[in-house]
């Protein structure tokens, strides 16, 4: 196996084994969504209208969950130094770690979204649109989060700071993700318009995220 594939398998294995793994994010997602009807009241018409927004918000919070440990854990046990000394380009390494993180936190959310959407009275077209926006949008959340994770790598209490740094950067993804999901249900713009922008945001973050995170890691680890 190439070093990058090895890293992918290793990171996914760690994520699956430590602390409940992929289920943890889904559980958090479910809990956040469950809280909303308690706060707003169980009005099914209202929940149906704001359902996509709630699910997107919950996904945004869930994607932050394991982020602060993404590089910090490797930094603490020394494997980050080995990775930095390795021959694989750091940008690719970071991207692979991001991919592993998405496989273990983002993808489970995509799979769980339709089930959780049932609680919010979403119908089939809304569910389909939501799954599609999740599939396209959650990688952007992970890859933007990489930047924060790399900046906070040496901080002892990086978790809260990470959220403060990353969340403002994810605003465009949230706007267009929710806009696309809503457009499929109520309009007035066709689903494609915001969805294409969401795709563009994801593609942009796939590039910007690894480069910025790798630069941050190089600066921090000197």
């Amino acid at each position, binding site marked *: 196996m190439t070093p990058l594939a090895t890293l992918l398998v290793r990171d996914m294995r760690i994520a699956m084994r430590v602390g409940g793994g992929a289920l943890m994010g889904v559980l958090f997602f479910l809990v956040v969504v469950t809280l909303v009807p308690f706060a707003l009241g169980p009005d099914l018409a209202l929940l149906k209208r704001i359902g996509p927004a709630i699910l997107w918000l919950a996904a945004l919070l869930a994607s932050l969950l394991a982020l602060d440990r993404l590089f910090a854990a490797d930094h603490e046990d020394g494997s980050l130094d080995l990775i930095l000394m390795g021959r694989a380009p750091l940008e690719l390494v970071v991207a692979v770690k991001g991919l592993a993180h998405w496989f273990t936190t983002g993808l489970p959310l995509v799979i769980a979204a339709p089930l959780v959407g049932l609680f919010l009275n979403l119908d089939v077209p809304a569910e389909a649109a939501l799954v599609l926006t999740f599939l396209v949008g959650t990688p952007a959340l992970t890859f933007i989060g990489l*930047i924060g994770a790399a*900046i906070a790598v040496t901080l002892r209490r990086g978790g809260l700071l990470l959220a403060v*740094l990353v969340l*403002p950067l994810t605003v465009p993804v949230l706007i267009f993700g929710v806009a696309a999901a809503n457009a499929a249900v109520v309009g007035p713009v066709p689903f494609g318009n915001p969805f294409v922008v969401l795709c563009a945001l994801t593609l942009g973050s796939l590039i910007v995220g690894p480069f*910025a995170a790798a630069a941050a890691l190089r*600066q*921090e680890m000197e």
Partner: protein
Amino acid sequence: MKKEIAMAIVDFASPSRFLKFADRAIPWLGGVTVLAFAFAINQAMIAPDDYQQGATVKIMFLHVPGAWLGMLGWALMTLAALGTLVWRHPLADVTAKAAAPVGAAFTLMCLVTGSLWGRPMWGAYWVWDARLTSVLVLFLLYLGVIALWRTVEDPSRAARAAAILTLVGALDLPIIKFSVDWWNTLHQPASVFRLGGPTIDRSILIPLLVMALAFTLLFVTLLVAAMRNEILRRRVRTLRLMQASAAS
């Protein structure tokens, strides 16, 4: 420890030329700023009320300079971030750190005056409009950078982390600028710097530009003073480190 002290001594030595310049420039800058404000406030007072907005149009004299300088602050931090990452210049670190609270203050001024104007004109203190939202995001980014500066103890390490965040956050600047063109917003489109000349009447445009000049001078004065303070703060830190290592 030794390396840290050596780095601290480099910090100690290099910006001393700036310190000399700052000591001389600050009284002059302050004086010119006061004069400019005296003139600008006078101009703003005698400017006529708008036929639709009445006296509230004068809020613009604070709002627009706040917005420009809030964005200028981040642009300056972006340049400083390049200086930090590419040339490792300690003065770039100092500029970036000093500009953050100043820029945040001007952005806050823009948000507060904007919402005070919005209440009588739009009927709400806040609307979730693209321009307003992107400026709010800029303000949050400012606070994030300030928090990062305060979290990382070693100044040069903090500078590099903040520089990367600043570069990424700079993507928000074009969004703010073009938000009124890309989306159909409640906020009016660009009316000063546009092709075909400004759409504001001269009687209000001239006080606005004078006011913007005065606020820019204030921005520069505050920035230079904050940079001087930051350099002095680093010197104190260096002396403390040296004292501590001498004692041990």
